[in-house]
């Protein structure tokens, strides 16, 4: 799951840091994630994990770190798709 989240971040988050070097708890907003980029991250995560984020998860903290995104995805029952 972590690898796929990092791949989505590399493609859509437009961070100042290399997504492959991020720690699970790193604050992505501090690293340059904008509100608008977080929309792209959400839509890309939905595609990658075949889930839909409900309104109650559309809060800034959901996309603040890899750990938070992983927790939200687990809550939605996401599984890592077979390659």
């Amino acid at each position, binding site marked *: 799951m972590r690898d796929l989240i990092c791949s989505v971040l590399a493609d859509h988050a437009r961070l100042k840091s290399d997504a492959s070097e991020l720690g699970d708890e790193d604050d992505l907003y501090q690293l340059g994630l904008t*509100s608008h980029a977080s929309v*792209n991250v959400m*839509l890309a995560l939905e595609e990658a994990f075949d889930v839909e984020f409900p*309104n109650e998860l*559309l809060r800034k903290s959901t996309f603040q770190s890899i750990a938070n995104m992983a927790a939200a995805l687990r809550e939605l029952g996401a599984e890592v798709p077979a390659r």
Partner: protein
Amino acid sequence: MSIQHLAVGVDLVLVADVARSVEQFGDRYLDRVYTPAERGDTADSPSGLAARFAAKEAVFKAIGATDAAVAWSDIEIGRRPGGAPEVVLRAEARRLADEAGIGHWAVSMTHEGAMAAAVAVACKDARAGRPAEEER
């Protein structure tokens, strides 16, 4: 009206970021973020959409509920007769604004070249939390 009855939010969006989102995600992006009225008002133009996204963020910041769960489409930037923008809130956005005592909004948007920006000012009910001696 005293300063504690005002709250302000501001945001800046790159038009190219919006254009890229439309290209990559299409209607999934457009329908998730913008209302039918906003899409109609802008004809889905990236500069118009970017200005509205900035305005939505500016309104969210002015509400002051930093980590609240608010759908982007529940903050609508509409048009008054004559063309001035107006803020229309629904669902959780409406509830949070009501809770904060916000009764009126002023919002202004602009876009020029690569950038779009917006400022939102929330006017709270002047009587909310006001000491009795100030009521005169």
